[in-house]
């Protein structure tokens, strides 16, 4: 009974060969997507070199650019973690968008309506309230899935639309700052602001640090605790979970609440760290991007850190790319979509680059309408 080389890694040991192959596919996916993107740029008659150098220096050319990339990456990190936690439980949370909006509005209210607290209480409180707002919005589809079988994919999408209408109503109605011309909430108090990490001339705020810490925390939670064991069992085989005495309802609700809380934090740190208030046109496409980030990271919490930074870089670099080559910012969306096409179907990449199959197969899985 000797140790076989190609088994899945244990909790303790790291199998470097597996790590290499699991990183190889996403990198080749990115490479291939950029290649196709270059084809599109070339087809529209723009300068490929100018576009991509613009994209790169926009994202990483100098401290200011890097700072902005990390600021962009922060909400993706939280929201990507949110999706990853759902996947672990076999749930596909497409509702990061709505949970993020609920988190943002909750944090904003906590930021401007609660007064007279010192920063070390007010800021954490605002973050927690933001997380709770998202958790509440996530718990509903989790509960409905567990109790009624309503598939979380459709329910979370519907919850997104409802959240957008609800925040729109709140921002234009009861929570509107009467002194501002455009509809927005009042500014949050200074005691609820996330501190800037590199001084006032850079936007990088402490939310980025919280996101990185959170990634490690979630990784620990999912792999080393009884809660993680339960969520993972429910996700991998609900029948076995029931047999083992693990409540499916409880874990569906728990996982979706955690997922919602993480998405809520994405909204909260954006309000408390960057925007300082909530405007009517706040969130744009975080929901789908967070899925992309989670897929790119193969739903591994640590992997989400580089995946989110890559995503932030694409977004942040797009402006300079447009400036230097005249190509539309929307090209980035196509490149992003292609990246996840290839990540979601790694067999395509394996086929193109003739990579042998490794031990681990699908990193993520969801379930259909039936079960």
């Amino acid at each position, binding site marked *: 009974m000797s*140790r076989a080389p190609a088994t899945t890694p*244990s909790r303790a040991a790291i199998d470097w060969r597996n790590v290499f192959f699991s990183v190889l596919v996403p990198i080749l996916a990115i490479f291939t997507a950029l290649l196709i993107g270059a084809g599109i740029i070339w087809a529209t008659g723009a300068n490929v070199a100018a576009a991509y150098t613009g994209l790169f220096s926009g994202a990483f050319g100098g401290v200011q650019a890097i700072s902005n990339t990390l600021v962009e990456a922060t909400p993706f990190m939280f929201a990507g973690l949110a999706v990853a936690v759902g996947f672990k439980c076999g749930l596909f949370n497409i509702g990061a968008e709505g949970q993020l909006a609920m988190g943002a509005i909750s944090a904003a209210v906590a930021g401007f309506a609660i007064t007279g607290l010192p920063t070390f209480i007010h800021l954490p409180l605002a973050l927690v309230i933001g997380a709770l707002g998202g958790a509440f919005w996530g718990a509903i589809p989790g509960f409905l899935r567990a109790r009624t079988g309503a598939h979380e994919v459709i329910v979370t999408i519907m919850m997104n639309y409802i959240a957008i209408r609800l925040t729109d109503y709140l921002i234009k109605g009861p929570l509107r700052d009467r002194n501002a011309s455009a509809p927005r909430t009042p500014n949050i108090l200074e005691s609820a602001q996330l501190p800037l990490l590199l001084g006032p001339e850079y936007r990088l705020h402490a939310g980025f640090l919280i996101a990185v810490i959170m990634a490690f925390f979630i990784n620990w939670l999912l792999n080393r*605790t*009884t809660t993680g064991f339960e969520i993972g*069992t429910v996700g991998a*085989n609900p*029948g076995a979970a029931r047999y*083992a*005495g693990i409540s499916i309802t409880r874990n569906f609700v728990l996982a979706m609440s955690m997922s919602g809380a993480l998405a809520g934090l994405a909204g909260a740190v954006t309000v408390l760290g960057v925007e300082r208030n909530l405007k009517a046109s706040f969130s744009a496409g975080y929901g789908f991007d967070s899925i992309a980030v989670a897929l790119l990271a193969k739903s591994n919490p640590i992997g989400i850190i580089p995946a989110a930074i890559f995503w932030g870089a694409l977004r942040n670099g797009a402006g300079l790319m447009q400036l230097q080559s005249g190509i539309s910012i929307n090209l980035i969306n196509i490149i992003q979509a292609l990246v996840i096409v290839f990540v979601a179907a790694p067999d395509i990449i394996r086929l193109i680059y003739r990579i042998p199959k490794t031990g681990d197969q699908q990193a993520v899985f969801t379930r259909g309408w039936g079960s």
Partner: protein
Amino acid sequence: MPPVLEVRNITKRFPGVLANDQVSFTLEPGEIHAFLGENGAGKSTLMNILYGLYQPDEGEIIINGEQVALHSPLDAISRGLGMVHQHFMLIPTVTVAENVMLGKEITRGPLLDRATASKRIRDLSEQYGLAIPPDALVEDLPVGVQQRVEIVKALYRGADILILDEPTAVLTPQEAEDLFKVIFSLRDQGKAIIFISHKLKEVRRIADRITVLRRGRVVGSADPQTATEAQLATMMVGREVVLKVEKGQAHPGQVVLSVQYLTVIDDRGTLAVDQLSLEVFAGEVLGIAGVQGNGQSELVEAITGLRSAISGSVRLLGKEVTNTASRVLYEAGMGHIPEDRHRHGMVTSYSIADNMVLSTYYNDPFAKGWVLNSAAINTNAATLVEKFDVRTPSIETPAGKLSGGNQQKVVVAREFSRPLKLLIAAQPTRGIDVGSIEFIHKGIVRQRDEGTGVLLVSAELDEILALADRIAVMFKGKIIAMLPAVQATREGLGLLMAGVTNQQSVTPAPDDLDFAIAASPDAGANAPEPPQAPV
């Protein structure tokens, strides 16, 4: 007469397995040719090759004197082959007629002509004595009738050669008898039949010729008239098989499990367990015999907390535990070997180590508070792997990569690793190799001897006869007979499993231990009022 089918030197390799190795045989018209072999002997592979589902790596197939290449089932069908699969190839949500004509539809204009199809099916079923209703939905039909639909499907396509893959696995002995009549009628009308089985008795009963497969090879043929079961068994397994499990007298103690007037409905809302009562004593094995689908699964689920009962009670060691969470039951000393290890028993993507603590992960020493203790989990797994002879490269190996027998040993090891008062073992050896079966049977007997009460549910009569001290026969959600194992005969149990209770040989003899719960209406008369819930 030339053979209708001749197979020469067929070889088929799968990664790591030689499924068929130089297999040759012939099939004459009007003959029933049985293939006998264990699970994994290569019978199904061979038949799938004949049916065009797999391509052989080497060898030739000759049908009616012509060498043929079968690339798809369509090729096989057009050459006059028909197959009745072990797992029926039927669409449950459409009618019999639609199932039969699927792929070769009778149409009028662009539309299906159901009337003509029904008539064709009625004609066919009259010719061979099949009796199937063409317009019923397949899912509403009993298993035996569904099987006949499969046969009609083949006949409808003009099959001269019929392959029946383990056809009796899902049938009652009486349904099997009906099937044999159909098979004889088919043979008498000139069809050639390949009959695949691992059951010695029925093969001897119906075959004209027997070919035995082992590890992908033909190890010999036998004449059903002269070969004994023991000879066939030796050929099949390759060594003398211990058909009986060594076990001594049971020493039953107090009641560990008491089920009273339990009523359970299944997923479709129909009554699965009907006012059922039974008791399991410490230190005995109570075997529940019965054809699958008579409520055994629901009974087990209700006892183990996986399904809520609508009325009645379950007591574990005298404590009321009706509709109690599984975890509470485990902690009170219940072990459960579930009938489907993939659906319930394990997480195939988890390592063996994690599967070994699937229901105990939260206890000290496997978890310290909220945090899992990998070292303790691994030590536990290493010990159990050693003790239960689980053949695995390492304890980190995902359970899904093990063979069925070793997977089942993981489940058994985990359940036996806790101190048990009651063991619920549902189909504990289904689909696994003989070596593992023996090992698990011995383990169950050892549990019994250590004073655990065992409730064994099995569709294999041999397993029940080998292990049980008392046997209950379950039919349509009720226990229709309860008898000491020493009084039981295969034939008597077979009749009981078909619901026939008025026989001489196994009249239930009630006494202090071996009482009978007859399905009579007054059985529940002096029962505590079962709460009425609408069904």
